[in-house]
């Protein structure tokens, strides 16, 4: 079965990997290094990211650049759910990988965004150089080229959102939560 599918796999993966269009999502200092990567000295357009889309319904890569706080978390979750499949996430900067400089003593920073959404590539440094961001995009392209149409179900399952039950938030299966509050839960019908 694999022999028949392999050329379809090759074409699909090649076309997805070489035209990743990111979403403009920059919260903090890492956003300036992302802008510096778009400018003319280090050009991201030669790797396929020709434009940065403004709306999440037209993008397929989310580069999360900047610190995420408790007030911003429901908005990040809502943006991730609005993106169509297949979608990928790069966690850029030390604050998104595990809390960064604020991990010991701050009262309002989330220690790493992989507690909320599933992450594909982690990129530490504070802030990462433009060459480091280009290296992360190359590694993501290598990861995409190893996928296959037959393992599509595993891919979708591993990219579903699983939040912690003990923290009073959410559920499993097909129901996704979009409003994170302490006492009220509002659920929406999920798309699988």
């Amino acid at each position: 079965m694999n022999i028949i599918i392999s050329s379809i796999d090759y074409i699909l993966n090649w076309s997805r990997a070489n035209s990743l269009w990111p979403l403009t999502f920059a919260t903090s200092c890492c956003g300036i290094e992302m802008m510096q990567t778009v400018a003319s000295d280090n050009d991201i357009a030669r790797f396929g990211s020709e434009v940065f889309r403004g709306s999440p319904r037209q993008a397929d890569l989310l580069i999360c650049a900047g610190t995420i706080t408790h007030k911003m978390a429901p908005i990040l979750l809502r943006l991730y759910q609005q993106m169509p499949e297949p979608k990928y996430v790069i966690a850029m900067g030390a604050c998104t990988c595990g809390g960064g400089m604020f991990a010991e003593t701050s009262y309002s920073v989330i220690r790493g965004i992989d507690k909320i959404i599933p992450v594909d590539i982690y990129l530490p440094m504070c802030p990462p150089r433009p060459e480091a961001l280009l290296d992360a995009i190359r590694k993501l392209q290598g990861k995409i080229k190893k996928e296959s149409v037959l393992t599509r179900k595993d891919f979708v399952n591993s990219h579903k959102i699983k939040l912690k039950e003990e923290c009073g938030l959410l559920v499993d299966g097909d129901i996704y939560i979009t409003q994170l509050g302490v006492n009220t839960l509002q659920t929406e019908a999920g798309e699988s």
Partner: protein
Amino acid sequence: MNWSEFERIFNDCELVGNKIVIQSNLLGVIEFVLKEYPYDMLKEIIATDKGDEGVELTYHLYSVDDEEDLFISITVKDEIESVTGIFKSAEADENEIYDLFGIKFIGNENLKRLYMPEDWEGHPLRKDYKEDDKRLEWNDKQS
């Protein structure tokens, strides 16, 4: 400024350097000071938690023509009058102090939390703040 006239009218105040410490009647003092001497802008309002005595608020006034600073300081427990009728920049400062310290300002129509989410429990910058909101349990769980 005319200090002898000032001390005659408001007799429970002290002068230390260029800082005045008063006990009550904040609006009256500010209106008197603005009539005597043209202070133009209120640069900031600084709040410090002093434990059992309450929260000390310091108002930092400045005059552009003569380049002079003045500090007026008062200690409150729960509520105080708002100065948004005189200086409009105080709206943002007073919302921040209500959010982080819990002091209410009478006369400010837009009083709401500025930095923390609307349903957060507690006032973070107080010295006796215990981190007991439910969302803070995320910090210990494995991802």
